[in-house]
């Protein structure tokens, strides 16, 4: 089976990579572009560890074929903030010491950043609902909630 050419925008740069028809977008990001921030937890859209922004919206990248990203705009955790210029959600996660094992964190941060972008001043209920699709096996949800609440107060929704 011939590989296909995937052209899309990844973290603000034009990307062109060869992918197999059966590669998921998560496979392409991790294996072909070296972007290992998004993780494969379940592979079936239940855990949220692979959350990225697809045309600005949070999606499970394990449920998209790589070629479905043709012509689309993809952002991974690597493109959300930079060292020294972190996204407010990232800053708040550092300050509150949210990560434990860390595996779920890129997905949670991407879900939270998308939530604050759509809803800059969420209620606690809305924050809980916004990260309902992200599982943390360390069960560190209390600190996530505190950090996202603080990031919302710091105006995260007006950036990103």
């Amino acid at each position, binding site marked *: 089976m011939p590989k296909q050419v995937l052209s899309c925008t990844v973290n603000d740069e034009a990307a062109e990579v060869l992918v197999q028809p059966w590669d998921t977008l998560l496979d392409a990001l991790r294996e072909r572009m070296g972007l290992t921030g998004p993780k494969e937890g379940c592979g079936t859209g239940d855990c949220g560890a692979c959350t990225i922004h697809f045309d600005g919206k949070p999606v499970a990248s394990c*449920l998209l074929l790589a070629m479905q990203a043709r012509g689309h705009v993809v952002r991974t955790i690597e493109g959300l903030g930079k060292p020294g210029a972190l996204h407010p959600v990232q800053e708040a996660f550092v300050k509150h010491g949210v990560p434990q094992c860390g595996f779920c964190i890129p997905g949670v941060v991407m*879900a939270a950043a998308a939530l604050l972008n759509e809803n800059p001043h969420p209620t606690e209920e809305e924050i809980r609902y916004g990260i309902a699709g992200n599982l943390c096996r360390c069960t560190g949800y209390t600190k996530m909630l505190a950090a996202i609440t603080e990031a919302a107060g710091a105006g995260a929704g007006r950036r990103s």
Partner: protein
Amino acid sequence: MRRFELVLPESLDDCVKALARHGSEAKLLAGGTDLLPQMKNALLKPAVVIDLSGVSRLRAIESGNGQGLKVGAAVTARTLELDRSVRSRFLSLAESGALVGSVQVRNLATLGGNLCNAAPSADMAPPLLALDAEAVITGPKGERRVPIAAFFTGVRHTVLAPDEILVELAMPAPGAHSGGNYLRHTPRRELDIAVVGVASQLTLANGVCTKARIALAAVAPVPLRATAAEQALEGQAVTPERIARAADLAVEAARPISDQRGSADFRRHLVRVLTRRTLTTALARASAS
């Protein structure tokens, strides 16, 4: 995932041609939230996958003449949840979209996928039954329309032939003084599958119900209407007593099974409770509109 050939059509015509060429060897890929997990688990092993994401017509939402609505089969659950034209007059459909999976899944999962998978618990089916929607289907022999109540033929089976595609859902305008509501019961509040789902739609004129629709999910092999319950409301003023009577009649329409999500008796109880609640909300919305 097993290897497959990936076809990337840019138009509905090309989709129909690809499907005609590959027939039952092919699977249509819309949101992928049901298809890809099944392919990863090797429950499905299509030789060909036809990706619908390049076909813009399937993602369109159109308000027609007379304020009816056409919703493309590849419109996402998240779009249904947020779209103003859907929320303003077809609120029960927006409510069902808001209940599917997580936001990461709702941004992918599609209306057509929910219907074509034909799970008895499909959340988007009852609102469409209550809104008198028609499925617009196309294939090599042209287009046909099927009332959504006749679209489902069994658990995971629909009227679609192997060479046909669901294009859109067409709904007539509910009219003035009409209101609807969809509710389901799940043990968890999010990311769960309905034990029972109920959609109601009431239309009023001069304090009398001119049209009632009550549709049930996860209580039979296919989503179904509780027609006796509807008839008990039509031509009457909708009172709490008549709502209670309709809820009792809706229970009689249900043919639930017992499984890991709930016993048949529990499901009948839920039909009564959710029918009463959705009718009460539909009545309030119809009165306010």
